[in-house]
């Protein structure tokens, strides 16, 4: 029961760190969606861009997170503030599932539906906004779901460059060989991830088109 009493004693600190964590993830996801969805659409419009865009996102995904934070540190404006750097790095990680799912969702729209839309005299923009995006929304959300869970985990590592968040406990705990401290970071992070996963799964189902 040592862990429980530790949590009770440090409730304030844990809450503050959780808040910081959510804040980091929120901004990272916002940027990732704002960049990833248009890129996903672009991939379906210009197939020759598919390789470079998905390839690039794939490479970003394979860089070890600690190393990526290190790489970005000397970048002028980015390296000035730890949060800035962490948010951009996290957004880079979140990109791949979002781009891929957006493209998959749009490509998965029934060929007959798209052809009917074109044949009725819908413009490309109308087809995108009224047909393709609504019909692929649930697939896009599934990508955001995966990316969010991923980002909540990686955001703990951002503490290494001084962003705060739940990772702080984990790094401190590792340094001091203190399991309670590590768990004080790991358990809330895991709960956050589960909550995000559940929340997005509800959204995903809500927007799944009936077949």
């Amino acid at each position, binding site marked *: 029961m040592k862990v429980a009493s530790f949590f009770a004693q440090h409730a304030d600190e844990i809450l503050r760190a959780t808040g910081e964590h959510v804040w980091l993830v929120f901004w990272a996801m916002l940027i990732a969606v704002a960049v990833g969805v248009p890129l996903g659409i672009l991939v379906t419009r210009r197939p020759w861009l598919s390789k470079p865009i998905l390839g690039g996102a794939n490479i970003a995904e394979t860089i070890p997170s600690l190393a990526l934070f290190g790489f970005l540190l000397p970048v002028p404006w980015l390296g000035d503030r730890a949060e800035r750097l962490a948010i951009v790095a996290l957004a880079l990680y979140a990109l791949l599932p979002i781009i891929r799912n957006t493209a998959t969702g749009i490509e998965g729209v*029934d060929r*007959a*539906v798209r*052809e*009917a*839309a*074109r*044949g*009725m*005299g*819908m*413009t490309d923009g*109308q087809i995108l906004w009224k*047909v393709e995006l*609504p*019909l692929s929304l649930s697939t896009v959300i599934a990508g955001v779901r995966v990316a969010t869970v991923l980002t909540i985990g990686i955001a703990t590592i951002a503490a290494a460059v001084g962003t705060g968040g739940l990772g702080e406990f984990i790094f401190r705990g590792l340094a001091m060989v203190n399991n309670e401290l590590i768990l004080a970071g790991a358990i809330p992070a895991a709960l956050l991830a589960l909550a995000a996963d559940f929340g997005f799964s509800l959204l995903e189902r809500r927007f799944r*088109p*009936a*077949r």
Partner: protein
Amino acid sequence: MAHEPHTEVAIEFEDATYRLPQGKTLLRRIRLRVAPGETLVLLGRSGAGKTTALKLINRLLEPSTGAVRVEGKSTVEWDAIALRRRIGYVIQEAGLFPHYTVGENVAVVPKLEGWSEDRQRRRVRELLALVGLEPEEFRKRYPHELSGGQRQRVGVARALAADPPILLMDEPFGALDPLTRGEVRREFHELQARLGKTIVIVTHDISEALLLATRIGLMDAGELRGVYSPREFLNATDQVAAAYLAQLRVLEEAGEEK
């Protein structure tokens, strides 16, 4: 939609050839005129070029050489969107929007054309009744709650929504089971006279062609082999026509033996 002064030819193919970018020719020098108000059925086997010909009319494809004229104007001179709004389009799988209700599906083009809500609603009711679907019962349903035959009826209603002078139908009854197909086809036959539209239908079904056509355009391997009235077709000496007629005869004989 405002109707332009009547031209004598609604649709005209002028030596229209369609070649794929890779060079394969799908359609070779088609010459064909469709008069306003007539129903032309393009008959042929899969790969004969029927669907390609149809898509040249609403400019889903553009001819590689030659021209296709709609109401006297080459399709490439038309604004593609304006052209398609003047042409109803029905495809085999209906292509209804799964996230729209039946009513919303029918109202797609009227809405794009900026009709008032009230006018849209009235039109939806009118059209659902026209294709034999009780408006109050079906308006709010989604496509996945309909049978294949009902979906196809909605597809026809949607194509007619903005009262286009021309209607293109690509195997409109092809995905239906034989009994439903016969039913929907007969209903459409009755509708045809009332609509007074220029209609081009693509099919590989000889009995469908004979029932619905004022003229039959026989296609094979990317070429138009001839254009016949249904009566002329029954006496045609063309090889491909003869093959279709033989098939018809087999069916009749099988019927007589029973």
